[in-house]
């Protein structure tokens, strides 16, 4: 009971503190911008812990965060092995292959206005489809190891990046292209010095969407068959074996990997497209 009350009291206190912080005169500072969401996240964890302990929820249904953290610390070897299999071997390789393929395809079809007009709507449609469903087919084609996972990731990331890059390549206006022509710039020069830089914000948009898709693809593909390691494998067998705390530790790894992957791409974006208005506004 005291756990329950304690958690609720903490919640109320954190909520009040956040209101004070957000309406204080430091609310625009970086420290507050980090502290408020952090406090919110901690509150959620404390509530979870308090509810699980206070209501006596069985660990087979929902383990407390502290218990998950214990399991996490005790099984770092397994988690690291799964992480390497799923993220490094499956997701990252597929992501790189898919991104390069989509990028090159976009530059190729951009040369033809006819192809662009045809591929953009089709690509937009395909990007909205539940492509994850293709996972069992690709697993049966490429076998159980990381190759099939990478293949699923390639198919999943291809269309969002293709569509975004093609759209980005159309971003320059006639005035800018005319200027390049008055400089007597050829196709390649215009592409490299004007159109690709102008397309970068769009490309990064696609790259950021693709980070999540890559992890989803790699994990789902493992549900359909994998060597005896990998995050998807551990989750699906863990649920069956009632090792729920290990499953939550694996989910925590997946969450951190997804956030870190997204954060990394966003960080590179801020460095590469520092000139774009959306980035300038942030750094001010």
């Amino acid at each position: 009971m005291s756990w329950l009350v304690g958690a609720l009291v903490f919640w109320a206190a954190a909520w009040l503190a956040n209101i004070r912080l957000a309406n204080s005169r430091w609310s625009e500072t970086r420290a507050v911008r980090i502290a408020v969401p952090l406090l919110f996240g901690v509150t959620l964890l404390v509530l979870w812990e308090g509810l699980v302990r206070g209501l006596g929820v069985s660990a087979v249904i929902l383990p407390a965060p502290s218990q998950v953290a214990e399991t996490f610390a005790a099984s770092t070897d397994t988690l690291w092995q799964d992480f390497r299999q799923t993220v490094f071997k499956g997701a990252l390789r597929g992501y790189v292959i898919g991104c390069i393929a989509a990028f090159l395809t976009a530059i190729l079809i951009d040369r033809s206005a006819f192809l662009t007009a045809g591929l953009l709507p089709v690509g937009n449609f395909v990007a909205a489809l539940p492509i994850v469903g293709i996972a069992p087919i690709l697993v049966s084609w490429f076998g159980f190891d990381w190759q099939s996972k990478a293949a699923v990731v390639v198919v999943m990331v291809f269309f969002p990046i293709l569509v975004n890059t093609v759209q980005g390549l159309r971003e320059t206006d006639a005035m800018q292209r005319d200027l390049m022509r008055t400089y007597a710039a050829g196709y390649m020069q215009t592409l490299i010095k004007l159109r690709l830089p102008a397309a970068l914000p769009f490309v990064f948009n696609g790259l950021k969407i693709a980070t999540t898709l890559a992890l989803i693809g790699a994990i789902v593909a493992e549900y359909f068959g994998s060597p005896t390691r990998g995050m998807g494998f551990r989750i699906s067998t863990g649920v069956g074996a009632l090792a729920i705390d290990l499953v939550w530790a694996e989910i925590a790894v997946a969450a951190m990997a997804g956030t870190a992957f997204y954060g990394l791409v966003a960080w590179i974006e801020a460095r590469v497209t520092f000139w774009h208005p959306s980035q300038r506004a942030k750094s001010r």
Partner: protein
Amino acid sequence: MRSLLPILTVLAAILGLWYLAVAPMNIRVALDQAERGGATITPEGSLARKDVSTWVLMVRNPDHISAGYTLERPRLPTPQQVGQELWKTTGKMAMRGRAWSKRSLIYHGWITLQSTFWGFLLGTTLGILGAVAIVYSRVSDLSLMPWAIISQTVPIVALAPMIIVLSSQLGVDGRVVPKAIISAYLCYFPVLVGMVKGLRSPGRDQLDLLRTYSASGLQSFVKLRLPASIPYLFTSLKVGIAAALVGTIVGELPTGAISGLGARILIGDQFGTPLAIWSALIAAAILAGVLVTLLDIVQRLTLKRMGMAA
């Protein structure tokens, strides 16, 4: 309509490539079957063929390439085979009055559609409420927005089996609720982001004008912010419904569901019937197309009525 010809060309090119790919994909299975049927294949025995490349096999056994197009369990079915399977499990069954049989894709599509709908409703509601909170309260803006972004970087499929276990432990019967939660999780984010943008789209001068009319907060919300956000809302609803469908199918895939399009894919994988997988995939694609088109029509009608048609 000007882009109809290019789109048709691209679609035809995709179909053409698909047909061409069937030959190398299926040659091994076709040769194995022909050999069992008594034909002489070079090289003999599927073990001996294992190290020979598909192209060499095709050149040496040109007579058996066509067999790859009519296999019962192909590695890659032809578009025609998929179409026939699709018709067999939808239109043909409906005509015989068995549209709601467990083998009909109409039945499975309906199951998927239900969860998608509830997830879409839940996700849209959450997204709109969250957006209102973020626009009107600085605390929510600071504390919710970063977590909304982080929530989307978390691969939901990792959570999907847990959500289903949890809801069955809590005594929720059926699979509609957990699937709807998963699709709401994927669906709320585009709506949230779109609505925050839309609710903030009225300019300073417009807000000031309403203040000179001494409009209350509620009035300026109902008469200015809400109407201004409608175009943004529809754009994100179209993204959201596609995401909700993906969520439902993801919820059906890894979790031993027995009905729904995702479950058809799963069962087709377990029983080794590729045609079932492919027809379920195409059915899901058609469903996505229909849902997005429907929302597009509603968007056009609504914006026309509101005088905002593009």
